[in-house]
């Protein structure tokens, strides 16, 4: 029988058909972090239950840890230490492997899972975190859940859910120079809306996707949750296999051979039927930057803030509020808009390739006067790799702070923030009101756009920066 990639993964994981359309689905990997995962483990232990397959669960400290060099359990966020210690205690008590603060494998959960080979093609993976969809880039069905569902997955190795609807987005064409997977993800949301993928597993395919390396695919899939998708998927191919080979928790020996054969067979059949199909031309994408408080409020970098009528009457109230929040009016140009800060980090764009591309822009240049610039590598392994390549020196010489890995100022947890009214260009994924600090104004863009803007002191078009 022909089916989509989702159908195939689903069939291998369906333990029981629940009543009324929900299935009980086997969960292969459970990831936890100190912000929402600790609470799940703690609650599970308090109810006297145990983790059914502790070797399939992994915990990491990333969300509220301090990212300053020389960090300890102390956090800038008040009470953050409680989260860290509670998670550590619960992980030890439950026998769950923990990548603690000082572990060389520590990092943002969606960055370390691929780099350690925890996520695998065709596997089911859950984490109480909305950007879990990133990991669909390796062909796993990976999705974000709540803490109660995480507790369920830990206790039973399963979750009960309906098979999500499917959507395929075929992306053909070639990304222009200076245009990245991040710009593509933003352009897709701009075109189809922040609710455009609602509840669907979105399979990205087409020549532009095949041409992407795994890190770019992770960036593309990362933004699927901003598209309201259940998750994203990219069929595994030789790049996926090459990426995973030899990683710490990837299969080895005979099992590797079997796994590889299985992985390469995982794809949607030619005649598979999707609930919805879209197509998109990668060649038309420019570097993108958001102007509003929702990733859908995005324009090509050389564009202007659109007129409020562009979104139709329903959008107008949100529009006015967004403009007011961002301190902009329709017709304002994005390039040249003065910035107060530049942030490179997050599970969207803090992998080694992101840092290399940003460093290429920064090399021999200086961050503009008065701009606070921060780079937070996505994992400790990324940080060490970057240091081995001398990238840290380029960042520091340019005037960037070079931090320890973590989520850091991707989101405001009550600790460190950019100030109210400060305008930040950020390689992160959410420009919601106060996401990066109370009243902070966030413009999302690619890491190279962030680097170029930091140098210019205002939002800058990376295509006009000679390399």
């Amino acid at each position, binding site marked *: 029988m022909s089916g989509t990639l989702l159908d195939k993964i689903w069939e*291998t994981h369906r*333990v029981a058909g629940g*009543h*009324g*359309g*929900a299935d*009980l689905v*086997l969960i292969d990997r459970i990831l936890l972090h100190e912000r929402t995962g600790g*609470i799940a483990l703690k609650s599970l232990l308090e109810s006297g*239950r145990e983790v059914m397959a502790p*070797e399939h669960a992994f915990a990491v400290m990333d969300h509220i840890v301090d990212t300053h060099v020389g960090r300890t359990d102390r956090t800038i966020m008040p*009470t953050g230490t409680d989260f860290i210690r509670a998670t550590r205690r619960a992980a030890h008590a439950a026998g769950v492997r923990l990548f603690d603060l000082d572990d060389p494998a520590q990092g943002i959960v969606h960055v370390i899972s691929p780099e350690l*080979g925890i996520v*695998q093609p065709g596997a089911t993976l859950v984490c*109480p*975190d*909305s950007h879990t969809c990133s990991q669909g880039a390796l062909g796993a069905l990976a*999705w974000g*859940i*709540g*803490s*109660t*569902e995480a507790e*369920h997955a830990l*206790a*039973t190795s*399963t979750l*009960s859910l*309906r098979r999500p609807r499917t959507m395929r987005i075929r992306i053909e064409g070639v990304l222009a120079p200076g245009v990245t997977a991040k710009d593509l993800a933003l352009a897709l949301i701009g075109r189809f809306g*922040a*609710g455009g993928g609602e*509840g669907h597993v979105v399979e990205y395919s087409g020549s532009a996707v095949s041409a992407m390396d795994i890190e770019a695919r992770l960036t593309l899939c990362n933004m699927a949750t901003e598209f*309201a998708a*259940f998750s994203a998927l990219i069929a595994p191919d030789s790049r996926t296999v090459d990426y995973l080979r*030899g990683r710490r*928790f*990837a*299969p*080895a020996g005979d*099992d*590797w051979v*079997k*796994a590889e054969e*299985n992985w390469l067979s995982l794809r949607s059949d030619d005649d598979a039927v999707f609930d919805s199909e879209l197509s998109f031309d990668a060649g038309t994408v420019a570097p993108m930057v958001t102007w509003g408080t*929702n990733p859908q409020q995005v324009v090509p970098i050389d564009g202007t803030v659109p007129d409020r009528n562009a979104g139709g009457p*329903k*959008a107008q109230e*949100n529009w006015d509020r967004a403009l007011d929040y961002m301190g902009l009016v329709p017709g304002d140009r994005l390039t040249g808009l003065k910035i107060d800060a530049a942030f490179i980090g997050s599970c969207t764009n803090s992998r*080694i390739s992101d840092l290399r591309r940003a460093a290429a822009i920064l090399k021999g240049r200086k961050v503009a006067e008065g701009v606070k610039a921060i780079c937070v590598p996505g994992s400790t*392994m990324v940080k*060490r790799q970057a240091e081995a390549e001398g990238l840290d020196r380029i960042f520091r010489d340019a005037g960037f702070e070079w931090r320890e890995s973590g989520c850091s100022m991707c*989101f*405001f*947890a*009550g600790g460190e923030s950019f100030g109210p009214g400060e305008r930040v260009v950020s390689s992160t994924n*959410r420009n*919601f009101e*106060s996401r990066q600090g*109370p*009243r902070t104004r966030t413009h999302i863009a690619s890491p190279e756009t962030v680097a170029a803007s930091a140098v210019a002191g205002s939002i800058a078009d990376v295509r006009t920066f000679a390399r």
Partner: protein
Amino acid sequence: MTPFTVLTARAAPLMRDNIDTDTIIPSREMRTVAKTGLADGLFAGWRYTSIGSRTPDPEFILNRPERRGFSILVTGDNFGCGSSREHAVWALAEYGIRAIVAPSFNPIFRANCIANGVVPVSVERDTVERLAAMTEADPSLLFTLDLPRQEMRVGDDVIFGFEIDPESKDALISGLDPIARTLRLRDQILAFVKTDRQLRPWIYSATATDHSARETA
């Protein structure tokens, strides 16, 4: 989890699209490793006059005296988008909200609602707007949300019917702990895993042995 059958309560309209979980419960309000103590932080960014303060902003709808004690929130598209934090639902439930009516919900948020006994009612936008207009016109109006019959009434008049998948409905009505329900199938799960080990051995062998010796960056 409190079982849900029929609720008669007042409503409050908060008609904005894309209200995200950080707006529902800002990160800075999640201070303890617990599922409680969150109601005060609900909509903190909108509800209080300034960040960190506890002075109610009289303009904000939930602070108006006529809305006190309401249990049905009427809101816009894609409610609960953003971070998957379950704290959003914990805060709403602790505040006293038992049902949310919206044109659509973020899928993670929706699942969190079910897990915590809050009924997510998705209906056409026109219907949501009609409901919002009714409670706007008369804040004291009592609505009856009848989950078994899948309808919303005022008195005996049915305002609208709605769809909800049977398993969510059962979970809400029974109020049963979903883990206990699933663990009744423990033997079936273990048998499935036993077979799966033969079919996909790499899923099991890889994590059992940590190959840190051959770690690559």
